[in-house]
Structures are given as C-alpha cells and as structure tokens.
C-alpha cells in the first residue's frame, strides 16, 4: 500500500522489505486484536447486567392456591401461569390423543406434579399474554387459555389446539423445593 509513495521519494538508505512487512503485519495485527477486544468489552455492556441476572429465579409458595384457582407470578419480566388443576382438567389434558396435536406432547411430559401446571404465560405466536387466569376470562374452546391477539386456543395442559400459534406454552425450568414451594429458574 505504501511502497509506491516510498519509492517515489529519493532515499539514500536501502529499504529492507522483509523487515518492513514484518513490522506492518505485527502492528496491524496488534491493532486489530486490541480493537476487537475493546469493541467486544463495550458491546458486552449491553448484555443483561448482574442485577438483571439476579432476578432469574423466583420462589413461589403454592399453599394458598386452592384447587381450580390460578396464580400469576413474574419471572424474568414475564408472567408465569400456575394452575392448580382439578381432576377433570387433568383427565381432559391426559385423555387427548397426542398424535392429533399441532405440537405433540403428552400431559405427563409437561408437569412434575399433575396437580400443578406451570407454564410461561406468553403466546408462542407473537408474544401476547393469553386470557384465562382470571375468573370470567375467556378460556378458549379447550378450557385452558385463549390469546385475544390472534385467536390461539390452549388446553388445560397449555398445549396449542387451534389458531396461529406454532408451539405449546413454554414450560419454564422449575423444581419443587418442598411440596408447597416451587423455585422457578
């Protein structure tokens, strides 16, 4: 890149081309490596901060939730639907033929304790929060949840049954700490 300019200038010192190439490559290499590290560090500041990550687990006491009632809690800024299912809801969910479902999954694979269904309350279509948590809400044709944005119906296992949503409601990672307390995240 610079040879032409250099050769045009009168010089009484012979130029060692190899040395010059070595210097050029090492200088440019160091500059590229330094810039890359700096840029990475700067862009990394936009990733979730420590206080945001610290919110990534939520403990929930299930004992006040009676059978048939639902509870909504926040986890990572998203609603988590917890439903204390009745026996009929459990049997509705487990008596469906898995092969007929748009997104095939058995009810057993979606719960840790059949009495408790824990799902992320965000429609898998475009991210709205489905109805069905409150008394009087439209629970859709399958008794679970109904998304008012584009009309997706979810059943009592949180599985999509009708509408544009491609997937079942997501199951967050959670575990039973005791019989009555779960830890989400």
């Amino acid at each position, binding site marked *: 890149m*610079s040879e032409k300019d*250099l050769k045009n200038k009168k010089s009484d010192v012979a130029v060692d081309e190899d040395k010059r190439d070595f210097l050029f490559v090492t200088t440019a290499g160091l500059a590229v490596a330094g810039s890359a590290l700096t840029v990475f560090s*700067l862009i*990394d*500041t936009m990733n979730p*901060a420590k*206080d945001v990550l610290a919110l990534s687990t939520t403990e929930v006491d299930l004992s006040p939730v009676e059978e048939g009632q639902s509870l909504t809690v926040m986890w990572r800024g998203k609603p988590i639907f917890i439903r204390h299912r009745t026996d009929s809801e459990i049997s509705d969910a487990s008596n469906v033929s898995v092969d007929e479902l748009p997104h095939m999954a058995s009810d057993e694979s979606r719960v840790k304790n059949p009495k408790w269904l824990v799902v992320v309350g965000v429609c898998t279509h475009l991210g709205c929060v489905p109805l069905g948590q409150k008394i009087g809400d439209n629970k859709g044709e399958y008794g679970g949840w109904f998304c008012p944005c584009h009309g997706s119906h979810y059943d009592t296992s949180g599985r999509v049954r009708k509408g544009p949503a491609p997937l079942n409601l997501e199951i967050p990672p959670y575990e039973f700490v005791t019989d009555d307390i779960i830890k989400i995240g």
Partner: protein
Amino acid sequence: MKENTSEQNKGLTGWIDKRLPVFTFINHNLRDYPTPKNLNYFWNFGSLAGITLVIMIVTGILLAMQYTADTELAFDSVERIMRDVNNGWLLRYIHMNGASMFFIIVFIHIFRGLYYGSYKYPREILWMLGVVILLLMMATAFMGYVLPWGQMSFWGATVITNLFSAFPVVGDYIVTFLWGGFSVDNPTLTRFFVLHYLLPFGIVGVVALHLVALHQFGSNNPTGLDVKSEGDTIPFHPYYTVKDYLGLGVYLIVFAGLVFFAPNFLGHPDNYIPANPLQTPAHIVPEWYFLPFYAILRAVPDKLLGVLLMFAAVMVLFFLPWLDKHKVRSANFRPYYRQFYWLFILDCLVLGWVGAMPAEGVYVLISRVATAYYFGFFLIIMPFLSRFEKTTDLPSSISAAVISEKFDNKEPSSESYVK
C-alpha cells in the same frame, strides 16, 4: 485500504467515486494531502483530540443506555453501572478520565498554536472555530459532571449556575430559567442530561468546519513559514499516518494507565457522597481543567467583575489574531515573545494550582498577580511585541530549515536554525 488515485475510474470504487467522490475526498485529505515535512510531535494533538472525541461519544452513548436522569435514581444508577453492568466500571472510568484526557490534549493543542502562531493569517477562522470547540467542551464537561448527582455534582452545578446571578436586573431570572425551578433540582438534572448528550454532536459539527478550514491552507509548521514549493511537503500518508499512529499508541498507554491504575486520581472523593441540598461540602472545587478559570473568578473581590473576567479569560482567545499582529508566526524566531510565552505557561499552571487552594491569605495575592499577567500577556505584551520585537534570521524555506537542522550539528539540534 484501497489503491486509489484521484483520477481512477475503474471497478466498483471508480463507479461509486464518479457519482459520490468519497474516495477522491479521502485521497485528497488523508493520503496525498501535502503536509509540511517538518512537523514535530506537537502536531499529533489534533488527531488525538479527534480520537478522544470519538471515544467519549461511544462510551457516552453506552453509558446513556444505563443511566437514569432523575434526582432519586441518578446516583444509584451510576453505582449500578459500576457494580452490575458488564464492564460498566470500565465504561465509566474511560468516560470520566476521557474528559480529563480530552482537556489535556486540547490544552496542549492550544498552547502549540500559541507558540507557533497558528492563529495568524490566514488561519484566523480555524483558530476561532477551535475556541468555539473549547467553549462547547467546557459546557459539556460541566453538565456531565452534574449527572452522577454526588455532592460535588450538586454544589458544582449550584455554584456555576449562580455565576449568572451576578448580572444586574436579569441575573435572577436567568438563574431560575437555567434551573427550571428555584434550586438545582430534577428539571435541572434532566435538561443537563439532554444537553450533555446533544452538545457533543455540535462539537462534531464544529470539528468538521475546523478541518475544512485547516485543509484550506494546510497545517502550520514549527518554522511558521508558508509552504513555498512541493519540496517543502510530504504526503500525509504514510508519513503522518504513521507518526499519528505512534503518538496514538503512547497516548493510549497513558490513558489506559490512568483508567486502570488511578481511575479516581483526577476526581474528587466527595462526589461519591449522594447529593444533599442541605449541606455544602467544606471545600468545594471544580474539576481540575476549570481550576485556572476558577482562580481568576476568585481573584476579584467584586462578584460581577469576577464573573466577567472569568468569561473574558476564554473570550480573549477569539481576538488573538488581532492582538498579535507580528508578521513572524513561530516563537522560535521571536526571542522576547518566546520568554513571555513560557512565563504564560507557568502562569496558567500557577492559576490552576491556586484555584485548588482555599481563597484566603497569600493565595489571594498569588491569584491576583497571576490573573494580571494572564490578561497582561494578551492585552499588553502581545500588541507591544508585535510592534517592536525584532526577530532572529528566518530560514529561506521549510526545506532550508530542515537541511540546516540536519547538517549543522554545531548547535543544539532543535533550535539550530535559529542563528
């Protein structure tokens, strides 16, 4: 990096260049751009200032993504940046110390111009645009220092905005207007944040004009002589790109040293105490780069006069091209100006030092003497010298100066062309 001469018309570059001559522009201004061949390292500080501006804008934008401009939340949001945000400490320390580095660079840049007469014909507007940049920088830095909402932020903002109350009749109205209320409070903080974000883009605009004005006549040089032939110049690339690159490396080492080993050295510990409108810190000082001006303010026993004198200390720079009308630019050939110049540098350092001292006893006297010299240098010494000073023999051209420096080894090399 493209192999590109200005008349090249081939390939995609040529196609674009014919319609949008960006490559020709780059070529003229960063590659072939004829530059005096005798520039010393003091000519690095222009590009360093430009790079620092970019560093400040990039880190500032990223900080603004995490900062909350609210009196209840600002201090904690800054602490969150320091503790929780990934590399947030690095981001803030770069930005904080970057402000100091920016002023160091720009002060040296200004003193360079003062020594080599870079403000003289035909570069008057170039110089004045530089003073505008300095004013914008000072406003931006002041408002930026308020944002963390610590004790020094709050009381600095209170004291500086109260300067305007010195003006008769309208003073109080101006201050109330600046505050958006009856004290420094939330409306003040939010507008300072907005302006702190906005003004740097104004600086970028003025820097662009500064460069247009620079490239009209090209850089001044240590001899202060005009370029007389092509032999006096060398192409900007690779000669000065490499020289700037080396200077940048040294600069970044110093900058990084400050950020990593002494990040709070230039700051004030009181600013880690949340703002308290009920208690003023015992000893309140501005950031170091304002200290000389602060000293001038305090040197005068009259409120209005002190304020006016402080503003005048910057404003006087605008008139420099007409205060110093001596035909010879470089202080290298002006034996008297040169001595007064070094005394002026010393004077600025004394003002900075005395500005950090309490305003009592002998310090008041020192600040008054230093203030007198500050203005005396511009208003008396400069016009006087431009009329009566006899210069030493000037070399016939830049090339002649370079050759005599290179081969006339009997005298100290840096000044050897001064007979």
